[in-house]
């Protein structure tokens, strides 16, 4: 997974920590099993020694396991907290925000994502954000549970009806990042995809203005059609 936001770096690092911890456990268990099977395989023989373990050995093993688990727990908290840190808007980012993140509402609905921008513009499927800018995505749902999932930019997060979930990211590079929904939401769930287009601040401003004007023009057209009796 390529990482294009500060939080995803932390997610990635913690994943690799977990991966190596898991690998150690698998190697120890499988290695011990293979050794025991090769060493003690026997069709017949005298009854083996009836060995029992005392408490001390058990406490030692439990102690090692506890330290291993505690270490992972601490690392888990450290990296998770780092991943949750609010990213800052950089010099190349949108200057007009004055330290506040750019708040965009993402609404999951069967089976597309709608993005509402601060100026009243909205878009479906494609989210446009400025590069190097802290973005706070407020996830909501109008129907069932959906999961917003653009791995290169941010953590997965569920949009649950009646609740608001937040995702923070700051894209470090212009480009298009693809994502999909990750919770079964009905028959067209597999097709519920999304794209985040990271552009320069100027292009972003231009996009939201154009989008707003086009939406207003479309709304005015509908109103005039209703007034002229062209639309029932």
């Amino acid at each position, binding site marked *: *997974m390529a990482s294009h936001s500060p939080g995803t770096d932390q997610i990635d690092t*913690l*994943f690799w*920590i*977990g*991966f190596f*911890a*898991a690998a150690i*456990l*698998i190697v120890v*268990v*499988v290695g*011990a*099993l293979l050794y*025991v*099977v090769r060493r*003690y*395989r*026997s*069709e*017949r023989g005298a*009854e*083996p*020694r009836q*060995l*029992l*373990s005392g408490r001390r050995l*058990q406490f030692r*093993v439990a102690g090692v396991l506890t330290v291993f688990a505690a270490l*992972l*727990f601490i*690392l*888990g908290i450290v*990296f*998770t907290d780092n*991943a949750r840190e609010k990213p800052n808007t950089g010099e190349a980012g949108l200057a007009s925000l004055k330290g506040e993140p750019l708040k965009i509402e993402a609404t999951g609905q*069967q089976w597309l994502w709608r993005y509402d921008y601060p100026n009243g513009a909205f878009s479906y499927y494609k989210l446009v954000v400025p590069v190097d800018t802290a973005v706070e995505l407020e*996830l909501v749902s109008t*129907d*069932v*549970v959906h999961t917003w*999932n653009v*791995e290169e930019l941010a*953590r*997965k*997060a*569920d949009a*649950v*009806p*009646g*609740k608001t*979930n937040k995702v923070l990211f700051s894209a470090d590079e212009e480009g298009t990042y693809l994502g*999909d929904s*990750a*919770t*079964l939401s*009905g*028959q067209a*769930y*597999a097709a519920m995809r999304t794209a985040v287009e990271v552009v320069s601040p100027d292009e972003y401003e231009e996009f939201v203005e154009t989008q707003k004007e086009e939406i207003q023009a479309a709304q005015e057209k509908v109103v005039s059609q209703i007034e002229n009796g062209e639309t029932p």
Partner: protein
Amino acid sequence: MSPSPRPELVADGYSPKRPRWAQLATSADHKDVGRILICGALGFAFIALVELVLMRIQLLVPENTFLSPVGFNRMLSLYGATAIFLFALPLVIGISYYVTPLQIGARGTALPRLGQIGLTLWAAGATALYATFLFTPSEAGVNPLAPLTEKAFLSNNGVDAWVTSSGLATLGFVFLAINLIATLKTMRAPGMAWRRVPVFGWATAVGSWLMVVIGPVLLAALTMLMIDRHYDGIFFADGSGGAPLLWQHLSWIFYTGAYMLILIFAFGTIAEIATAFARKPLFNRTVVMASLAAIAVIGTLAWMQNMLTAPIGIGWMYFAMLMSLALIVPFGLVFFNLIATLAGGTLRMRAPLLFALGALFAISVGLASELCHSLVASAWHLKNTVDSTAATHFTLIGGAVFGGFAALHYWFPKMTGRTMGELMARISFWTIMAGLLLGFVPLFFAGTEQGQVIDAYKYFAGTGVTAYNVIASIGVFVLFVGILLTIVNAMLSREGGPEAGHDPWGGETLEWFALSPPEPHNFDVLPDVRSPRPLRDIRVAIGHRTRRSEQATARDSQPVA
């Protein structure tokens, strides 16, 4: 005047009133109930695999049209319910129900009719699920998340049938569990204190208590869902105070507990097999028994590990992480003691031990992979990817398939008087192992590298997951063949397997003291239980007596100078 003695009745040669199948279906004998559950579970294993194969055919190539989106979702929903409620849980509960009363020296169960009602409810649940083919199967997924299951989104009666079937089956499991608890509490053989109960019997006790706790939680959630769907309830509906997340909490408590229950059963089985085949006592019984109880409690408390992307507080996420990681200690101790039991023994590599070793391998890989899902930020990356599908299948195939089949091969001689075909068992084992590795290892890569999401009826070309999915599909076909071989082996060996005698493995627990198959009343006589290994005690005593008698004979026959 004393009554005259009853004459001995001779019944040989008289056919029973009812045919055998009717006797079996109406019997409250724990062995009959257990056998029906085991046979039913194996039958549903076959059906679940057919469903899995159909889904894998759909996912063989990108944007395949073999199944429609709705058809795929229905197959997925049926597969999930079948694998959990009709295969894994009934198999482990069925084997426990058959074996545990024998292991503790009981001549039956404490509440036999309750167990029989439990079986009937489970069968009714299974019928309800598959009767949906007459109208509409559910299409809401393995754990159907509210509010997708609300009438507004899925108005046909597939969800109702799913609720009914899983509810009836769960109620049946609770009844069976209550009977097992009562039996373990009141019908243990003289001298069998809790500290002398076989580890498998202890695992049954822990698993049964767990079912009694988690079963009603799911039943409550299902009842709320039915009220939502049919009586304008608002438990899980958004608005008017409804809480969609409540469903997730309640259902994950059940599913996480059931996951632990299957593992506890598997570890109990492996402990019995390890001691019998290594001819050694468990390295530390007390620690294993305490660890199994800890897994039940801590494991269930880790239910929110499945909700780390939901809008819940970070404190709750850390709590879930703490509980999940705390499981490393009891799981680690169980693994350590099981492997240490095998070490130093004389391992006879027969099918039960082979499957038990396979279970240890698969469970270790599955649980270690779950570790990455327990670290909160890591779970934000992995949650709902096919990596989680792979981890879950490794653990559950380890517990229910390898663990369940290890138990089946081990206790099959007790149930039928015959052993299962050894060659076919070995071929089946290696085929299942190959199927597991081919079928699910690629999904680890597809999930972690490419983030392929779960439950989707298709994926797109150019997303880098095609090769993984092709291999996974081939692996599932191999897995299907492997599991089918064990089912066929069991069917063939029931009548045609080699005769086993009453104690083919040199077991140390009381079930091997009974005839194979056992009489309806299980035992004519019972030995006093003075240790966790009563049959070994008898063998040792006989050995001592024989040695003394031989020594005495030798002494007596010494020529006098």
